[in-house]
């Protein structure tokens, strides 16, 4: 119990499990493997953006341009495929687009010291505008079918994209635990000046976080286009906020230095699963946002109360310990005094 209370990913995962069982009891179809696989499949876009977002938030920054970067990358993918570029090169181009977009944010934040929310809000506008400029404002509807084969490819009945994305998430989690450079992210997010004084390359760390955010947005764009086979103008619109919601839901702290990629995975899965549950409960789709927002607020609020309760408990325990130790210190003295009193 204590572990669940202290570990936010576990808390959210348990809530998700309970919800799945409850919905399954109401509508057994929900528990069919295809449904569950579909949920995971449709969460991939959000999941990848959220992992990218997590790098930035770990350093105590914020990136509100992730959705726009994904949109821009998706447009590049669509345009280059239509221009006859081979699939593999087009995918590399897409990833590079994301990386470049992230690098622009990184330069603004590190070299010009623009506050992250302003830098990325500005680039959000710029990337959305570029996206409309490149396409002339119309959807890219006819894309060679080669890209859809990427999404159709399955291993053991599960789309390969799921395997790849989960493998990436696990690899990132492993790297965050064991790689020195990845640990820098936590140090910088927890205490930037302290990290600087320790000799950690603060600017390079922040720089790479924004680049990674862009790179993952590019990867999300590949998944998105592969899954739906065309590029609407709204690609990624509003997703940056959902990604932040997912990451925070999974336990990454906006004050930096706390969380890992599993937080992003759990958060993204949760938000997507809730959307699907609403369908099974026959609640109209336009309630999704209201429910998602309410859940985010509830989880964040409950988490705050739990943290307060845990802190109080610890302080009370410490107070009791202090009492005991002072009693022990005083008691022998009191005892000897009384003995001495008797002796006289």
């Amino acid at each position, binding site marked *: 119990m204590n572990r669940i209370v202290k570990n936010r990913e576990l808390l959210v995962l348990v809530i998700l499990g309970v919800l799945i069982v409850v919905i399954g009891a109401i509508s057994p179809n929900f528990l069919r493997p295809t449904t569950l696989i579909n949920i995971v499949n449709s969460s991939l876009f959000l999941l990848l953006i959220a992992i990218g977002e997590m790098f930035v938030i770990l350093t105590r920054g914020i990136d509100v341009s992730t959705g726009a970067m994904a949109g821009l990358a998706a447009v590049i993918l669509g345009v280059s495929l239509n221009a006859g570029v081979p699939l593999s090169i087009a995918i590399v181009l897409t990833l590079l687009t994301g990386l470049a977009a992230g690098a622009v944010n990184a330069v603004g934040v590190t070299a010009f010291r*623009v506050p992250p929310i*302003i830098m990325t*809000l500005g680039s959000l506008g710029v990337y959305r505008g570029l996206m409309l400029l490149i396409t002339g404002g119309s959807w890219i509807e006819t894309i060679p079918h080669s890209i859809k084969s990427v999404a159709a490819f399955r291993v053991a009945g599960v789309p390969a994209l799921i395997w790849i994305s989960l493998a990436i998430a696990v690899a990132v989690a492993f790297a965050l635990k064991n790689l020195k450079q990845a640990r820098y992210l936590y140090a910088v997010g927890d205490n930037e000046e302290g990290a600087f004084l320790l000799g950690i390359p603060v600017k390079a760390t922040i720089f790479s976080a924004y680049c990674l955010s862009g790179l993952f947005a590019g990867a999300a764009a590949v998944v998105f286009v592969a899954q739906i086979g065309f590029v609407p103008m709204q690609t990624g619109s509003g997703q940056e906020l959902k990604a932040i*919601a997912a990451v925070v839901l999974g336990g990454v702290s906006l004050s930096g230095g706390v969380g890992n990629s599993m937080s992003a995975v759990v958060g993204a899965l949760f938000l997507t699963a809730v959307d699907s549950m609403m369908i099974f409960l026959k609640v109209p789709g336009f*309630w999704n946002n*209201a429910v*998602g927002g309410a859940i*985010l607020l509830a989880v*964040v609020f409950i988490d705050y109360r739990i943290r307060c309760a845990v802190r109080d408990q610890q302080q009370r325990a410490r107070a009791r310990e202090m009492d005991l130790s002072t009693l022990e210190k005083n008691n022998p003295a009191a005892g000897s005094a009384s003995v001495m009193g008797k002796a006289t």
Partner: protein
Amino acid sequence: MIQWRWLRSWEAVLVAALVIELLVLGAINPAFLSVENLLFSTSDFAHVILGALGLTLVVITAGIDISGVSIMGLASIVLGLSWVAGADIWVAVAIALAVGSLGGAFNGMLVANTDVNPLVLTLGSMFMFAGVATGLPGVLDLLGFKAYGAGGFAAYQYEGITGLPKEFTALAHGGVGWVPNPLIAVLLFALVLSLILHRTRFGRYLYLIGVNPNVARYSGVPVKSVIVAVYTLSAFGAAMAGVILTSYFTSARSDLGSEALLNIITAVVLGGTDILGGSGTVLGTLLAGLVLGFLRQGLLALGVSNDVIPIIVGGLLVGTVAMKLGLIAFNQRRGNRRAYQLEISETREGGGSPA
């Protein structure tokens, strides 16, 4: 002396930018530079300034409120539904403003009573308010209210509510002389907020909380109620913007204003308010809102496509902030060098005497 000082302030820079902008746009397209045209084009972005004015106060307390854009839609749909449900149109306006303010109070309570980043909290409530605004018509059907039209309230969900009374829709299109009513609302709201911010104790509290909430609390500032009040005030501005948009577009829709977020925050930041809290003025936001709004109108009038405008606005936002930060760093460095040289020359002069 005082006037010279004012000329060096950020507000003066904004006034200069506004004048230059109007002159340049007017030189390219003289038709743009008629006073009547300029004044009436403010109606297209009055809602952005209203949202930004309230947000300025929130940002001064080192908070942020991104749910304002959803409050606009919520206020609009509440107004429409109350009217359809039989309320007098002015009562409906009052209900809309009250519901919007309540939403703000809800935000304020969350921010005041937790240590969670306001960005996360208002992000959650932004989704929630937007969802409630789209879902509300259906709820009224479920609760058994009677609508006049066919299909119940749910029919209004996507089409919006039209056919609002003339005296209400005329509001945003009318004006006093050449000054349109939305602009009057903006100026009045700016005046009131400006008085609150710069002439009351409450206003000073906002700056103090923005600089250091702990110090504020230890010096006896009722931090929690001030925070609740400031988020409520901000939401009231957004609700007012929703009402004005409803009147301007002559229909109540749940998605009114949803595109304004980037522009609202840009106006606040361009107005010189520090996103980290502790400084900012209402006048700055008002001027920045006008600069941005006229820029947009002017570019549209020049035939620049709507797609390019976010690029320009985004570039402007980042560029201004980078320039301001660079200027601060430059001044600081210059000041440091000056102080250093002064120190050196003093120690040289007085080098012999202390010993």
